[in-house]
């Protein structure tokens, strides 16, 4: 390659590199603008969330106050019920959750029930009704 040819090639490479640099610069500038917009959007969203959080905090306070009010009323009702019970000579008994729980009904042992009945009409009637179950239970 002659010196002239090398000079032409170098000039051509320089020109290509310059164009590439300009493209990168443009891209960086565009990216910076986009990031700036996103940052602003994030700031705005953050502000909205802060506002919503403050609103929820206020609502929470309101609900807590409502719960406290309802609990206060429940206690009052219990006291009133105790007063009524006491007025008719009955000692109030505390109702525990286990008192109202519903347990699954146990299967009936017809043979045992039949045997527990005294001889007579009730026993005969029960036998007539559950004869097969009783016989199978022997």
């Amino acid at each position, binding site marked *: 390659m002659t010196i002239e040819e090398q000079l032409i090639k170098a000039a051509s490479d320089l020109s290509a590199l310059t164009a590439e640099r300009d493209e990168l610069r443009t891209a960086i500038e565009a990216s910076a603008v986009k990031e700036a917009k996103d940052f602003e959007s994030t700031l705005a969203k953050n502000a909205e969330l802060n506002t919503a959080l403050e609103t929820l905090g206020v609502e929470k306070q309101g609900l807590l106050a409502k719960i406290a009010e309802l609990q206060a009323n429940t206690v009052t009702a219990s006291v009133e019920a105790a007063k009524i019970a006491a007025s008719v000579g009955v000692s109030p008994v505390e109702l525990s959750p286990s008192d109202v729980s519903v347990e699954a009904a146990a299967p009936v042992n017809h*043979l045992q029930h*039949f*045997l527990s009945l005294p*001889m*007579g*009409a009730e*026993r*005969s009637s029960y*036998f*007539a009704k559950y*004869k097969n179950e*009783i*016989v*199978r*239970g*022997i």
Partner: protein
Amino acid sequence: MANSIATAPSVLAESVIASLKGKLPALKNFSSVFSTLEGQAGKTVAVPLIGVSTATEFGSSGYLTQDDATLTVANVTLKHFKVSSRFNPLDLKSFGAEYLVRAFTPTAANAIAEKCLAEVAALVTVANYSSGTNTGAGLTYAEVIAAKGVLDAAKASDVRAFVLNPTYVNGLLADSQIVGAAGLGAQVISSGQLGQVGGANIYQYSNLPTNSESLAGFACGADAIAVASGLPMTEIPGFEVANAVDPDSGLGIQIIMGQEQSGFYNVTATLLFGAAVGRATSLTRLTTA
């Protein structure tokens, strides 16, 4: 067997009495004292005869009068009847207690019922009840009404009943005056049950004996025959005993069950039962000769 045999007699007793009551419907047409009191053969039970009472006007004598002159008692001597079956323990193990109940119940109920009815039928003789009619080979509606007339004339008390052998029952089932009756006929034809004819309950007793007097049936009032029952006192070491009672009539049955040394299960149904002549004029015999 799933449980101890201790529970089986109670179940068997209830099963047998339920079957037995269906086989002895005629007994409710007799004067009766049924109980589950324990006794033994030879015990005498005084059975009040159902009578026809006459009300009177209250007077100076107050209540110290007896208006019911026909109310008397008949003394019934109880006999001890039993039917026993033996069951192979292998069968019980293979088929379970249900097999025991199903096999024993009908056998025991039939045997006991037959024995009780035989006691009643044996009383129906010329010596005990002189009234009788030769109604021939078959029985007709007209002859039923004629027999009712005999009971009416004798003032036999209600409830009235006809106890007939199968030939006589079939004669009535074929009688055009019964099957031809509007409303009644259809039911008689479909069920084969005569129910009531001439105000009396009709019962078929397939093994009614002739008593060597050509007996084929009889019509009676409730005071003609007295019946009584009880239960035996049973204590057998190693055997379980259970009683059951028909709540409608008071008739009782006792089941005794235990395992013999041979290994076989012995199951027995037993009761005390007896019958006696009540008011002799309240029964009229129906004979074939």
